[in-house]
């Protein structure tokens, strides 16, 4: 199953189980969304539970907060993560704070889905990875899957969560585990074990990382597309890296991270977002707080550059296997 199909399946399964779940966003109704993630849902559940919205991300998220306060569980789509900013005030000041400021009289059980990341020649307004902004906002849970199986299980867990969850979808891997080799054809999810997705209900718990590749020499912290890039870098360098797929950025699975880095003594962090104050900063700070005395080399960050995402030079910006591999070598030689 592709990742978009898995995401669609998660919403389908949950809408069948709970008729307080409503799905809305720009072009997600009759049309099924620009990435087809809601295809068929309006036909199945009707336009009272699955509907298009005006082009107003602030309105979409604000309305969802009100619906959540009523007792519904809205699952909304922001067409691209690059367009979430008009809705940030409703997320930061309202959704994330409602439980706290009302001492749980009112809550905002909602899921905000948005495609993120580059690699599709989308330029600076269709490629962004704003995850670190969300992780700085207490009250938000931030999820970013790397494969169809997790995407479905994590989305179900997110929808069932009683607080707002930001669910980021790396659009470059909707159709296959892209590993950064843009010159080669992408293998489809159908030929990948994590592309095997049960039709029914299952959860992947929030806040739990997964070790994608056990290894002894260096810990790689990654999420989304970068998990596959890291895997490619490991096999190409032959370095015995332990690749941790964080899956949930907040709350962060520090136990798994700590255990791994204490074992390997080395750590490379990879993300596509710009470097300064990206989530890699928090990861690096956390690792050195937890594992300082075990570290044998400086923690490295391999990230997008501190520039907007360029269009034509996309692959000079994207942190590919070569850059990750070089970082692995550096920390091993250090």
């Amino acid at each position: 199953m592709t990742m978009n199909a898995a995401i669609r399946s998660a919403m389908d399964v949950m809408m069948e189980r709970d008729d307080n779940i409503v799905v809305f966003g720009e072009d997600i109704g009759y049309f099924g969304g620009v990435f087809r993630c809601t295809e068929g849902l309006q036909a199945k559940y009707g336009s009272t539970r699955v509907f298009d919205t005006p082009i107003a991300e602030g309105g979409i998220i604000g309305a969802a907060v009100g619906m959540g306060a009523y007792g519904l569980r809205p699952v909304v789509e922001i067409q691209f993560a690059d367009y979430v900013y008009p809705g940030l005030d409703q997320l930061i000041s309202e959704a994330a704070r409602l439980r706290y400021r009302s001492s749980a009289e009112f809550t905002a059980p909602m899921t905000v889905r948005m495609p993120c990341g580059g690699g599709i020649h989308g330029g600076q307004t269709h490629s962004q990875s704003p995850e670190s902004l969300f992780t700085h906002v207490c009250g938000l849970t931030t999820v970013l899957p790397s494969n169809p199986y997790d995407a479905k299980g994590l989305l179900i867990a997110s929808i069932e969560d009683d607080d707002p969850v930001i669910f980021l979808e790396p659009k470059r891997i909707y159709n296959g585990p892209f590993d950064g080799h843009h010159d080669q054809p992408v293998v489809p999810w159908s030929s990948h074990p994590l592309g095997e997705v049960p039709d029914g209900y299952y959860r992947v718990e929030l806040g739990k990382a997964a070790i994608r590749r056990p290894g002894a020499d260096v810990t790689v912290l990654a999420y989304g597309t970068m998990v596959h890039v890291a895997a490619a870098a490991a096999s190409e360098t032959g370095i015995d890296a332990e690749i941790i797929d964080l899956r949930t950025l907040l709350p962060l699975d520090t136990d798994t991270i700590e255990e791994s880095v204490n074992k390997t003594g080395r750590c490379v962090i990879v993300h596509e977002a710009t470097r300064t104050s990206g989530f890699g900063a928090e990861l690096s700070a956390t690792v050195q707080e937890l594992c300082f005395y075990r570290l044998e080399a400086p923690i490295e960050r391999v990230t997008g550059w501190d520039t907007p995402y360029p269009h034509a030079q996309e692959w000079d910006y994207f942190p590919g296997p070569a850059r990750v591999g070089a970082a692995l070598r550096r920390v091993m030689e250090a």
Partner: protein
Amino acid sequence: MIEAVPLRFGIPEPPARPGELADFSYLDVPAAGSVARPAVDTRPSDMRDLAYSLIRVLDEQGVAVGPWDPQADVAALHEGLRAMVMTRAYDDRMTTAQRQGKTSFYMRCTGEEAIAVGHALELQARDMFFPTYRQQGWLIARRWPLVDMMCQVLSNEKDRLHGRQMPIMYSARDAGFFSISGNLGTQYIQAVGWAMASAIKGDTCIASGVVGEGTTAEADFHHALTFATTYQAPVILNVVNNQWAISSFQGIAGGSQSTFAARAIGYGIPALRVDGNDYLAVLSATRWAAERARTNYGPTLIEWVTYRAAAHSTSDDPSRYRPADEWKSWPLGDPIERLKNHLIARTEWSEEQHSELVASSDREVLAAAKEAENYGTLLDGRVPSARSIFEDVFKAMPQHLERQRRQMEEGR
């Protein structure tokens, strides 16, 4: 082709600044009873004129006249009067408490009591109100415990919000009163979302949201009107035009070029413009809008024309930016006085009864304050525990917050 003249930059100025004579000539006040009352199923395009008129029921003699007379029975009006007087007594008391340092901050609604009180008594128990910080009258009208209100303001050990929220940021689900946000306007689109949810479920309760005229400039005002019209949400969208937004008069929000009620017209939403200091007009306009919403005729915007008689908050000094006595010249008077006079005109009330009501309200508020202060104040430091600041960030406290709470307790 016209020849080029230098462009001019215009910025609206209030009619009077400190030291100048108050001047409300910009507001024209039609006679009570002069505005027609269309049936609730009238098409919005057939009643646009309502956005430019001013619905008033009480005439100069305090007599209820015209099609908008709600024909309210005396008991209901006594109840409204009680709540308005109590609200003012409450505001007085809390203002004093702030001066005494028992709390850090307070906001009055003096001169605007009729709106929240009338609205509260006209809407139903399961409806949801999305208020601003100036709608305490709703809680008092709904007889939410004064002591609970005060404990929140005092941030004491009995504060239902555990001292986490600034004073006056009440949350009272049991009174149909949504948690107040410190961020202006955000509740407006939330009210629409809540109303959409009610419609999605085929429920029967409606929502009502409030913003001040200054806040109509925020994005969420536009979002609320757009979503309300597209989904024909069962919601009342109130704009309390009290002429001032802190130091900015209503012209800064665009009030010099049009009415705030008229904002709704372009969305195909019907709008009422109402004398907000006329308690009977408040009941009547609320009833009309609520009936529209309940019978699937969709949203209504109501501009309540009133005046912010007091300072914006205890941190504000209005004499810096407007004539100190401006309220004296306010053409729509004092809502309490006007309802009082109406009841007296109906021989259902007297000056003596009124003085007794004022005195008993003061006594009730004083007693409540005494009780509330027994539970502590910001001054004596009997405030909720530090531990509680880590609660309700999430439903279940995540590991990192437990760790941080331990660190706090270890003084790290």
